[in-house]
């Protein structure tokens, strides 16, 4: 197959081609002074100068809140009705290679003991187009978790900035079909690719050691947890922007007569996350909740699903109001 390129001026045509067929086009755009993933309609909405969007694109596969059933209360019965999964054809454009790598873990969880169609159908209808990073900051640490701006894990199409064009690399079958469906927009040829931003690998981090230390339950009551994370205020903002965090809560909302069952994002950083009806809380203190998040990323996911729990996007570091840096904990646990 000849080398493909996408002229940046053709981005509008690509958006039209996608939306014209009834699909939604999601891309980083500027909203309320920050770059975020949103459904967009035209090329001028697409942010050009960004490191990565503040939120991850997970909300288009796993929305913050969604109705999964409806109910009506009868005199002595409850009428429960399922709802259709809303899974429109979606293109996520301009995701970064790090966050795309989160998809394997997402799928592993949502298909583990129960196939959650609300997730799987949406993911199946989504094409992820990543763009290699030409910019970064001191929160980026993909290279430390064995990813890089050249990684293509989870992506369907991988683009590289190349002056006024992107070079195009098809990664998956879905990506191939995407290119075929919008063939008119893509051109053939070569272009000189811009230099990538490679975050410096944190040399003090040894993932194997982190994993080994977490596997040995001896660390559980290590005072180091409290020492490292006592400043955590439990706001959960890290879990909300994290591309791999996917915990949710089920709530029934409505009146005494009818209502909806909703699946809402939840966060392991809240004390109510593990609070038992008895009043007992197995994770009473914030450092225990933080320990759980860290273990989920560097022990539970790698061990249970052989997938990455952390992709090194650095969102949790950027968004943290007390600047609790996960890499500092990784360094400590590499000792």
């Amino acid at each position, binding site marked *: 197959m000849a080398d493909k390129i996408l002229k940046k001026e053709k981005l509008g045509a690509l958006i039209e081609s996608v939306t014209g067929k009834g699909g939604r086009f999601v891309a980083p755009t500027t909203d*309320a002074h920050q770059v975020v993933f949103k459904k967009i309609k035209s090329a001028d909405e697409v942010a050009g100068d960004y490191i990565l969007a503040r939120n991850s694109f997970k909300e288009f596969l796993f929305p913050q809140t969604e109705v999964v059933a409806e109910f009506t209360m009868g005199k002595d019965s409850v009428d429960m009705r399922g709802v259709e999964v809303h899974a429109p054809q979606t293109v996520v454009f301009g995701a970064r290679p790090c966050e795309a790598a989160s998809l394997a873990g997402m799928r592993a969880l949502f298909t583990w003991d129960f196939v959650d169609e609300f997730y799987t159908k949406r993911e199946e209808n989504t094409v992820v187009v990543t763009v290699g990073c030409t910019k970064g900051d001191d929160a980026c640490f993909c290279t430390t978790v064995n990813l890089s701006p050249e990684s293509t894990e989870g992506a369907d199409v991988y683009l590289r900035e190349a002056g006024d064009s992107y070079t195009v690399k098809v990664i998956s079958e879905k990506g191939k079909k995407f290119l075929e469906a919008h063939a008119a927009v893509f051109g053939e040829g070569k272009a000189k690719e811009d230099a990538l931003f490679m975050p410096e690998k944190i040399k003090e981090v040894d993932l194997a050691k982190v994993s080994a230390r977490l596997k040995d339950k001896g660390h559980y009551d290590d005072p180091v947890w409290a020492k490292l994370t*006592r*400043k955590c205020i439990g706001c959960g*903002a890290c879990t909300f922007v994290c591309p791999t965090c996917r915990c949710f809560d089920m*709530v029934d909302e409505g009146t005494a007569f009818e209502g909806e069952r*909703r699946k809402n*994002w939840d966060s392991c950083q809240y004390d109510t996350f593990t609070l038992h009806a008895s009043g007992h809380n197995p994770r009473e203190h914030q450092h225990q909740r933080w320990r759980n998040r860290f273990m989920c990323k560097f022990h539970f996911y790698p061990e249970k699903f052989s997938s990455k729990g952390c992709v090194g996007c650095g969102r949790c570091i950027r968004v943290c109001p007390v600047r609790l840096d996960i890499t500092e904990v990784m360094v400590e646990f590499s000792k």
Partner: protein
Amino acid sequence: MENTLRQKAKGLLESGEVKVVIGYGWNRAKTRTTPVFITDPAEAESLVWNPLCVNNLSLYLTRKFKEIKALGRPAVVAKGCDIKNIVVLMTEGQFKREDVFIIGMTCSGTVYRQELWKGELTPNIMPTKCHNCDVRNPHVADFVVGEKTNFTPPEVPTGMVFDKIKELDSKPQADRWAFWVKEFSRCVKCYACRQVCSLCYCERCITEKNMPQWIETSAHPRGNLSWNLTRAMHLVGRCTFCGECERACPVNIPLNLINQKMIGVVKEAFDFKSGYDEKTHPPMIVFSPDDKENFIK
């Protein structure tokens, strides 16, 4: 100033007067400040002071932080604006004046967000609160670090927050409603605003109560509106405009607007501003026969 601060912290820990000093330190890359809890006098050297010290550390004095409380009597490094919150906590009986050692920092302003820092503190990267600050010389402290400043705030408060409030106030109700519905639509219900607020110290927040459920936890327009408005109401006459909620919000909801608006309303109705005097109780928790009744129509 940093040296004086470190010396004082070291002395306090060595003498046993306090068991922990809550202050600011550097992150690994020394690009951002982060809260630190110093218990070893030798570690007092890691305390820092600069315009990146944005966090309101009074948060760690609240009952939400049982583990920090368990360390023993704290000293807290506090700017004037942070001290206002400490004062409110005392007026609300959360602790007594002698329970905490306040190291007051003379301040010439901080950055609005740490990522804006380019090595120099310029007016355009300072939050509205700093431009109108009347507590750059700490008003309640056990020890003050830094030379007294002569800064006097403008008579009529200025800055982006006040300009925006004025603009909103001039609009019809429907437009104001539309403005807030749009702003709140971004809310992800992470509750970072609550967690970062030293005055949101309830151990069980109303939003976590579900029998009955007062506030819908879903991040849909109704749930978002009821959460944000409820929180605003719970801060009336208490909020000191420290700005932490807006800074912590991952989706940039302009919470300062609501809080400053409420401060204005309380000032007008009760001639009260919170955070200045530990002896005066906030208007919402006291009854006075002189309270105005003109809201009853």
